[in-house]
């Protein structure tokens, strides 16, 4: 799994590339933690999933874990950017869409982050 991060205002955008499963979830978890630790100003987390062809329940669990950190520690919001159809189906089945929004473009994701305060 290849991971990249960028800051835009109070949002952290993490771009994932590769399959998100038990093995890569570990790297993802550590990477996001490190990025969040670097700045108190980050409130929202945008996960760019456009280059993720596969996810399973371990991957979903890793995303849920990041949601909890963002929500509890920073009262922020979690947004998924452009998940592909098979990934979207797994996210829907898992119930994660009840706490996470989906944006189709980065612009839309940033606009959603700005709105803020979605209380699930």
């Amino acid at each position: 799994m290849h991971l990249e991060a960028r800051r835009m205002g109070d949002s952290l955008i993490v771009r994932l590339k590769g399959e998100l499963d038990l093995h890569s979830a570990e790297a993802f978890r550590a990477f996001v933690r490190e990025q969040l630790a670097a700045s108190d100003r980050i409130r929202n987390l945008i996960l760019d999933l456009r280059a993720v062809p596969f996810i399973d329940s371990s991957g979903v669990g890793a995303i849920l874990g990041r949601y909890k950190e963002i929500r509890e520690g920073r009262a922020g919001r979690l947004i998924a950017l452009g998940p592909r159809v098979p990934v979207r189906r797994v996210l829907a089945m898992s119930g994660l869409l009840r706490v996470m929004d989906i944006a189709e473009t980065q612009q839309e994701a940033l606009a959603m982050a700005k709105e803020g305060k979605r209380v699930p």
Partner: protein
Amino acid sequence: MTLPEGIANRVALEFPSKAENVAFARTAIAVFASQLDFTLDELDEVKVAVSEAVSNAVIHAYGDEPGLVRVEAAITADGELLIEIVDRGQGIEDVETARQAQWTSRPEERMGLGFTFMEQYMDRVEVESAPGAGTRVLLRKRPAAARVAG
């Protein structure tokens, strides 16, 4: 070598229960499954189900020392895919409870959705497990096109 009656083809995989090997197992089985007339979406479903069962063997079956995981897949003469995931780990005390959605023995880290995903994406899921002896999960699926046609 003769294949068992009613079996058109089969393959077996064996590997230590390491997280790195989950991708190996699901991809290998998906390529084997593509010998049947599955759509790409269905192959993706097979991948998810295998990923769940193999991840369970990696996480739950053995302690810190990795153990052996065996995956066998077969294509029946009438076009059904069978996949068996077997470990010789600690087993499951109460299979019925374990299969319930959101039930997990590790609530801190896991979502308890592994069996749920297997059931959503495969036609049938059978689990045999004995504490101390290990777990055997059997997954079955037919291409939807074949179900409609036949």
